[in-house]
């Protein structure tokens, strides 16, 4: 489970693990139409960020991320994410598996 440390009103520190990526993949597979945009965006854009530097807010694909956290990071202007490489690679693999199905529900191409 993600470790959330609220430093102050503006600052939050988030620590995640491989299990949190599995939680995101499981949730995405439970409702592919709902998460289609996130699935497509994460799969298509994560390589741009060399996988482990991916930012969920770069392309507004943070719904799954926020589901996993159980909190809303948007309330904090400063947040840091401590995640092992395994988190990103597991998430990428999961999104890859769901990608073709997700495209059926969200066929619009993602902006650059």
């Amino acid at each position, binding site marked *: 489970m993600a470790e959330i440390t609220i430093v102050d009103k503006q600052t939050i520190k988030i620590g995640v693990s491989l299990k949190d990526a599995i939680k995101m993949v499981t949730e995405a597979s439970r409702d592919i139409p709902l998460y289609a945009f996130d699935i497509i965006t994460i799969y298509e854009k994560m390589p741009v*960020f060399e996988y482990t*530097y991916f*930012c969920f807010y770069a392309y507004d694909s943070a719904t799954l991320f926020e589901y996993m956290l159980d909190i809303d990071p*948007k*309330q904090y202007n*400063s947040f*840091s994410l401590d995640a092992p490489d395994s988190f990103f690679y597991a998430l990428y693999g999961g999104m890859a598996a769901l990608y073709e199905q997700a495209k059926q529900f969200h066929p619009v191409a993602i902006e650059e």
Partner: protein
Amino acid sequence: MSNITVTVNATEYPPQLKHKVIFQTYNQLKPSEAMLLVNDHDPVPLRFQFESMHPNEFTWEYLEQGPDMFQVKISKF
């Protein structure tokens, strides 16, 4: 040498707005102008996004590189 014409302090914006504000600001720069980005961590993901969206159109120069404050001069060719 590009002149900095505008500063974006990313710590003043919530996460879902940071990238939008930064790219909107960059897009409004004229050629040879630059923006100063201030952040509380190294904006490496943002640099990857810049390279994807604006390949060969900008330079990225650290004016301050941590540990608590990062300032990056982003210049438009």
